[in-house]
């Protein structure tokens, strides 16, 4: 596997604040890689360093084998960026947004027009060709930002929260389009708070918290290793926790109390779940949910279920 992004000790400081705290990661050709993390974890700061928007404070970074500090132009020619905030050109129409952007890449007029038509079709925006940006819905704006990021046929696509705030249809459309880019060989680096988004798109994820990467791996592996196969959610009074813990003391099960729920993390195997439910049947609970462990559990286990603002 050929690495296309290589970061070692990558650091970003704003004055005294350490936004990214010496992280290491490698992203390979054709890979779909996700940064997960709560607000303020340092995802945007990381992405911005990748395309030179934000100069790195320390560490090493190679993008497409080049150093962003000395060869930013050549790197930027080969990547596409969807930033966290939509930054479409509101003075221009949908088509003009694409054509003007193509001109920044020095694309000849004819080719730009062809590429713009292609991308409007790909993103289902043809009907809006002449519309002004303000007339677009949130989902359409996001699709236009994405179309714009693809104008130069990038080798790497950087996406900072591509679907935040969109409705389910809009999100699914964007996911489908992103997955279909895979056959073209584009690598994708995205940030997200949505576990389903990461599960849908990413070959590998890095979970970030407070500027550090606290776990890396494929979503399924990470969930299995760090959470287990299944989760049992018990809505019981905290007073009963001790009783539950005593009754399962001989089983190798990790538990966690958060709010009105006691979480039990089960390693592989349904037999265990069966034993467990048999034992817990006598305990007075208002609800018991038995389900697959998800990336969400991993995320919350790693970063804590409490809301912590950094």
């Amino acid at each position, binding site marked *: 596997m050929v690495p296309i992004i290589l970061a070692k000790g990558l650091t970003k400081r704003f004055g005294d604040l350490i936004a990214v705290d010496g992280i290491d990661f490698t992203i390979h050709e054709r890979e779909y890689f996700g940064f997960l993390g709560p607000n303020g974890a340092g995802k945007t700061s990381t992405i911005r360093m990748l395309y030179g928007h934000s100069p790195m404070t320390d560490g090493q970074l190679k993008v497409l084998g080049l150093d962003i500090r000395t060869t930013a132009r050549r790197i930027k020619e080969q990547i596409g960026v969807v930033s966290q905030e939509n930054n479409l*050109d509101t003075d221009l129409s949908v088509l003009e947004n694409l054509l003007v952007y193509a001109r920044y*890449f020095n694309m000849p007029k004819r080719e730009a027009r062809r590429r713009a038509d292609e991308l409007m079709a790909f993103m289902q925006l043809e009907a809006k060709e002449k519309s002004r940006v303000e007339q677009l819905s949130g989902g359409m704006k996001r699709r236009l930002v994405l179309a714009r990021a693809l104008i130069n046929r990038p080798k790497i696509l950087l996406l900072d929260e591509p679907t935040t705030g969109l409705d389910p249809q809009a999100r699914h459309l964007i996911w489908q389009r992103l997955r279909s880019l895979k056959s073209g060989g584009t690598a994708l680096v995205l940030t997200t708070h949505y576990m389903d988004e990461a599960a849908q798109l990413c070959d590998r994820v890095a979970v970030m918290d407070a500027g550090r990467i606290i776990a890396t791996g494929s979503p399924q592996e990470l969930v299995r290793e760090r959470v287990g196969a299944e989760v049992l959610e018990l809505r019981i009074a905290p007073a009963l926790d001790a009783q539950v813990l005593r009754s399962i003391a001989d089983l190798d099960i990790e538990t966690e109390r958060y709010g009105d729920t006691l979480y039990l993390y089960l390693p592989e195997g349904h037999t265990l779940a069966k034993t467990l439910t048999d034992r817990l049947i006598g305990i007075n609970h208002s609800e018991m949910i038995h389900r697959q462990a998800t990336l969400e559990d991993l995320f919350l286990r790693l970063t804590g279920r409490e809301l912590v603002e950094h």
Partner: protein
Amino acid sequence: MNDIFRIPSVSWRCLRVWQRDRDAYMKFYKLSLLGNLGDPILYLVAMGYGLGRFLNQIEGMTYLEFIAPGLVISSSMFAASFECTYGSFLRMIYLKTYDAIIATPLSIEDVVSGDILWGTTKGMISGTIMFAVVGAFGLIDSVWAAGIPLLIVLVSFLFASLSMAATSFVKTFEAFNYYITLFLTPMFFFSGVFFPLNRLPDWVSVVSKFLPLTYAVEISRALIYGQPSWIVPVGLALLLGPALFFYCVSINLMKRRVIQ
């Protein structure tokens, strides 16, 4: 600190930003022209004809003749300044246009430079049209007036750059009032556009010597009425120096602001 005073590395790609600004302008140019030309034409007619009737000749000219050259120059000043204050600020902060463009092969230096070139162009458009209006009033009577376009370019470039430097410090739209009400507007009134400086109290003429518009107005009068003197080359140099200085400084300041 040294970062602010060095010569920025700008590439030809800044023209892409100029093209973008032009394309956006062409969609609404009528409205924009009205904004840029309404005021100076109104001043020319109201003050020149209206007030002029009650005034004696100034330095051997009618009042209309006296104020016309300065209004050509100040229309450039205002058009260039508004573009590189409100226009650039809007694109940088609210529309995030700068952020979008620096994700492409363009650098922040290219973007700011392109915006300054566009502000310069806006100043040239206004100044040139005002120049034509003044010509239509039959006020031009020297071939030396052929030098006016050069002066317009220089003034537009100077104020586009100066305004961009101001913009790099501004946090809210309201803050532009400092720049416009405390700097541009007083300069408009105390640089000899409307009254000869030698008739004003001493301190005013001393202050006016530090205002770049003063030299531009004097040069414009000398050219339009065919009385070129040493003030033309010296004045042009006094405009070009600061223009280049602020061009460099404003790009560096904006870079410091945007790139964090």
